[in-house]
């Protein structure tokens, strides 16, 4: 467990820690984007490029959450986690309007498989 910074410790520490070490490093990028976007043409190649980078980054977040998962998810085998994701992706490739079914099917594979294996 990470201990509070001594001279800032007190009943308000969890709130302060949240603001300093989670809200600030997350929100700063949204603020910077507002500052930058005032001079950017939405049809430009730059915006097309940043969209592409953001898409790859988000896909990367997905892969990392599956490879190194938090909490109880780590109790299920890697093959099952990847399998659930593959089922979701397969349905989306088949028909990309079926978001609900894709999410549900992936969850059924994961939870059902977990039930049988554990």
């Amino acid at each position, binding site marked *: 467990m*990470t201990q509070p910074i001594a001279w800032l410790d007190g009943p308000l520490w969890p709130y302060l*820690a949240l603001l300093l070490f*989670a809200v600030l490093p997350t929100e700063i990028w*949204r603020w910077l984007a507002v500052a930058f976007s005032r001079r950017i043409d939405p049809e430009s190649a730059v915006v097309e490029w940043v969209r592409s*980078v953001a898409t*790859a980054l988000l896909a990367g977040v997905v892969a990392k959450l599956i490879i190194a998962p938090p*909490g109880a998810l780590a109790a299920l085998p890697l093959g099952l986690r990847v399998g659930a994701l593959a089922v979701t992706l397969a349905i989306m490739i088949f028909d990309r309007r079926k978001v609900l079914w894709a999410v549900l099917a992936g969850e059924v594979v994961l939870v059902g498989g977990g039930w049988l294996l554990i």
Partner: protein
Amino acid sequence: MTVSADWNWKRVALAGMRDALSLPAWVVGLGLVGIGSLARDVGYPVDVAVLSTILVWAGPSQVIFFGSIAAGAAWSAIAIAIGFASLRFLPMTVAILPLLKRPGQGLGMQLLLAHYVAVTAWTEGLRRLPAIAPHQRTAYFLGFANTCMAVSALGTYAGYYLISALPVPLAAGLLCLTPIFFLASLAAGVRHRGDVVAMALGLTLAPLFDRLIGGGFDLIIAGLIGGSVAFAWQRRRRAA
């Protein structure tokens, strides 16, 4: 649902709420249930868990925050990891703001709109906003995003008290909603083959670089390389 150009802002905001409640708000809300349990594990009060959902509004950042405290990471390392994981909000926000900007809009309003940028509002916004008249988009987006946030705040609160009582497969299912929904949203937002290439490269490069680079930089590098390759590929394809 489709939004008619002559509707007033209340009706447009309501349409945004309805679209959010048609699925996305529930998925994000359920996805953030896990955050409640992670916050409880490190002994932080329930209001810090709920505030993290409202103020951070980024599942991965919240997972890193509470997960790293549990693992005993240094505060500076936690902040740097979250900063890198959130760098994606810069290109994402730059990409969606042009759809929401209006002449005469104040800086405060733009900062507020930017705060809601996270995977759901971003993918759904890019998909739905172009079909809506420009003067109605802010109302629609705020109705949509605030509904997602309210449902998620409730989900986080519920998770704080509930998730440890759930059997392991169900708890795992809740925690896995975030990546599953991220992936489905990305696939739903695909506009051309360049997006498919970006997704495929992101999915494969991130775990690879996690082994090779690590230290929090892996994700950013995977995104930059994957996204740039996909962008260049799409340009060449269009030019050919």
